[in-house]
């Protein structure tokens, strides 16, 4: 169910590195955050030194007066530390959230422009989990992990240098005993990134199942299949839990090893140092200083645990996000694409063949059809013969796989998508409404439409009911328009297409959910619109055929006949598709 993504371990880090372009505008802020973190750590380590100074200075000399400046110094250092933490959080709160927002907006923009074929393949839940969970993971890494990685690295280096300065053999002991950390991190990293990728994919699956359960709620209720959905959800949630537990166990093992390292170093230091002191090559004071420093080495090593976990998760998350940025925009403006200002609406299919991506069955083969400006052609064919596929091509929802489609004799792939779609409006077989106001749904393709134009479109589509909704045109239609009746949805979708005054109007079975009377009214009004507009109408009913000047019969992806309704009525194949004569025997066999 999950999208097979899993690229290599190294590619994950490369993906994370690629996202730096989003961070670049905030490079300064990142540096400020880093500086704040370093100075705050330094300030907090200085405070004990003030104590030393107090003991050695004022107290030693019984000088109460000298106590006050020391007090002020400690106070100042304390305030600096707090102030720097505050400053870092402040900068972080702006910069890091901005980075997250930018990636999210870009991701969304990209997704909206990826072709329909991409969305046929990818589950919304998988996409969603990238835009939410994964980006959150990346944000956390940028805000904490990356910063502390540098701070801790510096701390480790400084402490190590001090250790070596104190006594070289002991320094070597510390270095050697902490080195296995690198090997551990490597082993852990590989396993962790593998599982973390799996967890993220499974989070996407869970979101997908949730989405299906929600959008299919009516069917679930109609068949009382709540328990079945519960099972499916449960399986998915359990799989996610098992993988998360694997992650937890791996983390526990790694973190356990990491906490062991500094203490073993300490044991080794006591042994080696103690013997060295006994043999007189080291002073006791130096050993004490050494062990004190060793405590400071503990933090960078232990922190490595969560920093690395965070980094791995961020890297696989970045990989998942980059999969979207890397998906090919198979339908995009060509370089030097033309903008079509005015269009007569002459639409021609020339030897058009079409196969859905990932399928090996041609849905359309060698389709030739020219629709003159103002002409209307109806497409008639059996279920699954390829009508909707044909209707999706002129607006480039999919691209032809062979041949070409021209608008005003220009290959539509040479036009900018924006201008092409301005001229070609489509009504889909299932009306796609959004949970927005009725008005916003109608003016989807023409935000500048005036009130009169809206009224006219509603009139053509016989959608006067919209005024009677509780808040008129401002009423929200509910998710997918499900708070409307089937016919009401369809009429709004029709109004939406009509209002954009296209030069080519593609209607895919636009009146299937309407009663005969309403249908007749719409046909009359639509007939007037189609006088001036080129029309391509997919029809199942003889009544709608009346709107067309010519009819094309589609059989298994091949246009077998084009002509007027009366001409084609001679063909038994055509007559049977539209026929409602129930005495003729059904024709169930339709092998391709």
């Amino acid at each position, binding site marked *: 169910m999950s999208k097979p993504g899993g690229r290599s371990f190294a590619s994950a880090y490369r993906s994370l590195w690629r996202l730096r372009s989003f961070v670049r505008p905030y490079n300064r802020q990142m540096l400020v955050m880093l500086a704040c973190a370093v100075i705050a750590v330094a300030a907090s380590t200085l405070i004990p030194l003030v104590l030393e100074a107090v003991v050695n200075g004022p107290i030693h000399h019984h000088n109460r007066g000298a106590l006050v400046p020391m007090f002020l110094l400690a106070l100042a250092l304390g305030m600096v*530390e707090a102030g720097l933490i505050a400053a870092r959080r402040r900068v972080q*709160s702006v910069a890091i959230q901005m980075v997250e927002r930018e990636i999210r907006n870009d991701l969304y923009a990209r997704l909206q422009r990826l072709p329909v074929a991409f969305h046929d393949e990818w589950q919304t839940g998988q996409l969603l989990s990238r835009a939410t969970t994964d980006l959150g993971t990346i944000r956390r890494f940028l805000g904490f992990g990356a910063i502390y990685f540098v701070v801790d690295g510096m701390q480790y280096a400084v402490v190590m240098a001090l250790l070596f300065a104190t006594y070289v053999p002991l320094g070597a002991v510390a270095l050697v005993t902490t080195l296995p950390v690198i090997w551990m991190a490597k082993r852990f990293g590989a396993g962790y990134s593998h599982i973390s990728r799996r967890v993220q994919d499974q989070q996407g699956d869970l979101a997908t199942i949730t989405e299906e359960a929600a959008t299919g709620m009516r069917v679930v209720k109609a068949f009382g299949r*709540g328990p079945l959905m519960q099972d499916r959800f449960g399986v998915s949630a359990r799989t996610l839990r098992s993988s998360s537990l694997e992650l*937890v166990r791996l983390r526990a093992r790694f973190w356990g090893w990491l906490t*062991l390292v500094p203490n073993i170093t300490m044991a080794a230091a006591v042994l080696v140092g103690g013997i060295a002191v006994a043999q007189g090559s080291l002073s006791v004071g130096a050993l004490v200083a050494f062990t004190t420093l060793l405590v400071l080495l503990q933090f960078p090593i232990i922190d490595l645990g969560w920093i690395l976990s965070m980094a791995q998760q961020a890297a696989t998350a970045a990989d998942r996000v980059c999969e979207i940025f890397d998906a090919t925009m198979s339908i995009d403006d060509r370089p030097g694409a033309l903008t079509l200002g005015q269009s007569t609406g002459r639409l021609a299919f020339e030897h058009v063949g079409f196969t859905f991506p990932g399928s090996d069955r041609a849905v359309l083969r060698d389709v030739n059809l020219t629709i003159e400006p103002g002409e209307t052609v109806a497409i008639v064919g*059996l*279920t699954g013969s390829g009508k909707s596929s044909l209707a999706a091509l002129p607006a480039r929802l999919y691209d032809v796989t062979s041949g070409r489609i021209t608008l005003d004799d220009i290959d539509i792939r040479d036009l900018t998508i924006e201008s092409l779609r301005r001229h070609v409006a489509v009504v889909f077989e299932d009306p796609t409404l959004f949970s927005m106001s009725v008005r916003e749904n109608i003016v989807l393709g023409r935000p500048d439409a005036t009130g009169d134009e809206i009224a006219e479109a509603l009139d053509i589509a016989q959608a006067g009911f919209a005024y009677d909704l509780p808040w008129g045109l401002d009423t929200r239609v509910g998710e997918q328009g499900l708070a409307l009746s089937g016919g009401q949805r369809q009429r709004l979708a029709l109004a939406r297409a009509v209002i954009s005054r296209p030069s080519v109007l593609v209607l895919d079975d636009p009146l299937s959910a309407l009663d005969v009377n309403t249908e007749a009214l719409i046909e009359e009004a639509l007939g007037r619109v189609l006088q001036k507009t080129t029309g391509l109408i997919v029809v199942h009913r003889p009544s709608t055929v009346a709107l067309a000047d010519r009819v094309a019969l589609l059989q298994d992806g091949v246009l077998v006949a084009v002509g007027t309704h009366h001409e084609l009525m001679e063909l038994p194949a055509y007559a049977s598709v539209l026929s409602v004569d129930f005495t003729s025997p059904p024709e169930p066999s339709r092998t391709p």
Partner: protein
Amino acid sequence: MSSTSTQAWRGIAAEEVEEVPSDWTGLLRRRTRRLIGSVARPHKRAIVLITIAIVVSNLAATAIPYLVGLGIDRGIAGARHHDYVPIAVITGLIAICALLQALLYRVFVSGSGRVGQEIILQLRERVFAHFQRLSLAFHEHYTTGRMIARLTSDFESINDMFNLGLDTLVNSVLSVVGVGTILLVLDLPLGLVCLSGFVPLYFLSRWYQRESTKAYRVTRNAMAQVIVQFTESLRGIRAVHAFRRAPRNDEIFGELSEGYRAAMSRSFQLLGIYWPGIVLVGNITTAAVLLYGGWRVIGGEMEVGVLTSFVLYLRRFFEPLAEVSQFYDSFQAAAAGFEKLAGVLDEDPGVPMPAHGAPLPAGGLKGAVTFSNVRFAYREGANVLAGFDLDIPAGQTVALVGETGAGKSTVARLLARFYDPTEGKVTIDGIPLEALDQHSLRRAVAMVTQESFIFSGTIADNIAFGSPDASEEQIISAARAVGVDSFVHTLGDGYESDVGKSGSRLSAGQRQLVALARAFLADPAVLILDEASSSLDAPMERLVQSALRTVLADRTAVIIAHRLSTVEIADRVLVLDSGHIVEDGPPGRLLAEGRGHYASLHAAWRDSLV
């Protein structure tokens, strides 16, 4: 959040109580606390065990500095006299402590992780189950996006809490209590100075709790809005493309995503005050101890050593507190998630089903349906049905026709118990629908909805949805009856072919056929078909028709159709107009009588055929 004027596109809907009035906070907090308690309770033992693990691990860790001191004092003394036993023993002890500490820490990390995952799993299933129980009316205003937000991103914040820093909480509490006691024992007056730092901390924490609760609540809502917009526009991607909606959507999404950013920034900034606030209080107290302690040492009222220990201990007192602030932050984030979930769990199912419904008659249901005096409104004050009466004897096939928006689907939905009538009753064989449990209701009624929904998966999976226990033969024979087999072989893997996301690899007619096969397989006493063959071509419709004739022979059926060809197999036609039955009778008689609604509809339809 953005102003209302920029959100006009969203339109108006009745139910919008996103912002919680402030006097609710108490109730919300109580409800949230109850939920957290109820999910944690089953894991009480595990929680105690992992707490012990981390405490012991901590003790082992604290023993190490002591052993190091011992090594320096005793070990070296021995080694000077070539007695290496003490130093070896002490090194060994350090190693043992280190091992113990690491081992128990690992136990703690995996233990707390496991408890966290269990809690998440159980809560997830509980919330999902509740979503399933909630009525359609609820889901219609709640929206898919928010349901997804609840089940994914809210849990994210809970997961974070379990992954980040539960041990800091335990550790910090331990050191604060331990060190606090030591401080008081070491020197009472100075100890009291230290503890006085708690007074500002208390107020600071109260302030933080109040503000961050609000901030995180906004975060959850903002995230849900982002998810709603995201899922909706991707589901409607065809319309987005065809109508060049992307730029406007970018704007809208940008606004919502900015809303989330602003909310997150706010919570970041709150912690950005709270955390350094604690550090500041700690540092000021340290400085004060230095001054006051130094003063007293100079005055000879205190030992230098005591002052040194004091200042060293103070670090271990306030630093953990600062760490707790970060844990508290993730706790607050999780609490906001819990609060949302508690809210969902608190929702009334609306159309409640009894756990054990009325017993079904011995021979199974016959399928006599009555609507008596039913009133129904989706929105208060706009009745779709009023005083609606209908009697369908068992075994009858009824066609429901009428203008679009007349209320046909509404009648069907009431019969399938998607909603309960506002007034009146719907019964099957005399049993009110609300007396049936889920299992019996499904045996009683199944419906092909006007919008045929196909799940991701195979064709067979989708058909089997009607009856999950069906054998392969049963699935195939249901499929064959409605003509699914006429196209499955074109799909590569036959019945095991993947239909793609929401059935995107099928044509509209093919989707309807699958939905029909699903209903045939379900084999209910009452079958409802709401525009179930509207996208089929005529020959296919004829095939379905003849299949229906067999299937509906001894079954109650309600068929809604605009194409009157579908109606021809009905025993009885009901014409619905604005929620009222205006005509009722066998189709033949209504046609013969001539002048009625059905006759004129039929005439118009006949005319449309040529």
